[in-house]
């Protein structure tokens, strides 16, 4: 793929990933030809609303797409190793150890009948069987401290911890084995704003300390603009814009990105006129011909209604899925 950069520091490379599933005898492309790359110590923010496919994309990177979804095409390369070609056993080996996942809902992601310590023991000993239970618990305590939880809490049950603390435990479990890539799927959506800020600070601090790469998946554009290095904007399963966050902020290209930026309130500005993007979220069962966004686009042309635009380069490491001639029109 032309738009995927590759440097010696590239940890993860996703190329043409496509996920389909069947609903009521119809085929839905939840993820359509998505490509991007991730460097060491980099945070990639994947932002999208309902129907964007971002969660399916996240799960497909670790091959946990739930039935009836299937990855039908693409490559996911982690430090040179192609994940989609691995056997199930090998993939299981990697999960938690080289690439890990923080789930959205801290309330239900931990086993309520097992202590926090048991979660650590199970995780560590699955990947490093020679470690004893005592050693695993000791490591667990250290990591809990790292994420800001008192080490004694390792003997608690999940229900004894608050939502924010549970999410920290999830993060602790995700980094316990020093993975290269951490995927955080809406890690703070269920949390309050102060806890959210602290969790996001924590994720970035850990990223710097361990040199890992972080993928932040969210619907909240403010969060990704504030905290990620690069941003992938998704709509109806496709990448519509991919650039550095400063470029997205100062020079957004795609009408959807522009619309999103105009619709979110900025608490640091005193005067703002905000506008919604008209229309409705995409109906994945009945996508329009041509560009998936054209029904809501203020500058849709005849060509947009007929042809789906390809992802083209519109700046330094800046890619947009829109026909280039329109840029002159809406300047």
């Amino acid at each position, binding site marked *: 793929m032309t738009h995927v950069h590759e440097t010696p520091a590239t940890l993860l490379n996703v190329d043409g990933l496509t996920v389909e599933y069947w609903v009521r005898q119809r085929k839905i492309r939840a993820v359509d030809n998505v490509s991007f790359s991730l460097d060491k110590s980099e945070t990639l923010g994947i932002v999208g609303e309902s129907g964007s496919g971002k969660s399916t994309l996240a799960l497909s990177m670790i091959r946990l797409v*739930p039935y009836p979804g299937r990855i039908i095409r693409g490559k996911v390369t982690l430090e040179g190793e192609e994940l989609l070609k691995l056997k199930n056993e090998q993939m299981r080996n990697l999960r938690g150890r080289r690439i890990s996942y923080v789930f959205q809902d801290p309330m239900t992601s931990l086993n309520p009948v097992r202590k926090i310590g048991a979660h650590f023991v199970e995780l560590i000993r699955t990947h490093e069987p020679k470690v004893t239970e005592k050693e695993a618990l000791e490591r667990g305590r250290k990591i809990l401290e790292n994420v800001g939880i008192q080490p004694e809490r390792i003997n608690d049950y999940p229900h004894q911890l608050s939502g924010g603390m549970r999410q920290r435990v999830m993060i602790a479990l995700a980094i316990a084995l020093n993975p290269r890539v951490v995927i955080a799927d809406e890690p703070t959506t269920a949390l309050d704003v102060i806890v959210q800020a602290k969790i996001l600070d924590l994720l970035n601090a850990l990223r710097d300390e361990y040199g890992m790469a972080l993928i932040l998946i969210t619907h909240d554009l403010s969060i990704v603009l504030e905290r990620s290095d690069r941003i992938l904007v998704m709509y109806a399963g496709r990448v519509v814009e991919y650039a550095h966050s400063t470029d997205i902020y100062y020079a957004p290209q795609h009408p959807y990105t522009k619309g999103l930026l105009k619709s979110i309130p900025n608490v640091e500005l005193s005067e703002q006129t905000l506008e919604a993007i008209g229309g409705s979220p995409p109906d994945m069962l009945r996508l329009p011909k041509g560009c998936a966004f054209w029904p809501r686009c203020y500058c849709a042309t005849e060509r947009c209604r007929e042809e789906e635009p390809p992802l083209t380069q519109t700046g330094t490491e800046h890619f947009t899925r829109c026909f280039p001639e329109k840029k002159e029109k809406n300047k």
Partner: protein
Amino acid sequence: MLSSILPALGTLAKRGLAGWLIIIGAILVVGITVVTAISPWIVPYNPSEIPSSPNILVPPSAQHLFGTNDLGQDVFSRVLSGGGIMLQVSVISVIVCLAIGVPLGLFASYTGGVVDRVVGLVMDSMYAFPGLVLAIAIAAMIGRGAINMALSIAVVYIPSYFRVIRSQVLSIKEMTYVEAANAVGARKRTILTRYILPNVVPSIVVVATVNFADAILTAAGLTFIGLGVPVTIPDWGQDLTNGKNLLTSGAWWVITFPGIMIILLALGFTLMGEGLSEILNPRLEQ
């Protein structure tokens, strides 16, 4: 009317296995009902009459498709017309259950508190009895006959309706749209009829189909032990009782064919229930 049935069947078939279950079940039920209804016109022999010169215990043959019983009556004719009692009993019992069980369930569980507790206690104690035993006890008390059978079956089944409705009402009661109705000023009666009941209907339908199936089997059972209808009316249950004794003498056909019909009718309802349950309570789609 037929012109709307075919498209309806088409939509059902598209729903996959569940749709087919309903279609097959419906075919069985409707088929048997129709056959029973038109039986007076299609029976080769009079099923209630006892022939004067009987050909008793004739095995299945060209003249008697299903053979004859010990009174010389043609089993085939009796089979065609014997469903009437079963169908009447099950329909009446379901109607009684709906008329009593549904309002009771709605009101008691929505009101909550002591009312819910007391009614629940009564229902639970009834539910604790094995159905057939309770039905027998009631039938023995109130006497024989189709209506009485229906009533005893209804009494046995009301607790099931109550349970299902109660669990639904309890969860729907907490839903925001009920809260919104309260916020707009709706009275309790309105909320029960327009907000809770329509959302409970799918589960009621499923219980009703199971009720039908069970009623048939219980009616057969009641008749089997002699608490059913008088001997002269053709009835599968009756034939079961009769045929049981004849098995030892090798006349298998007297009990088998009515037995198969009972199974088919019960199966028809059960299949419809399964299919409806699948469609009305679908698994979560992503």
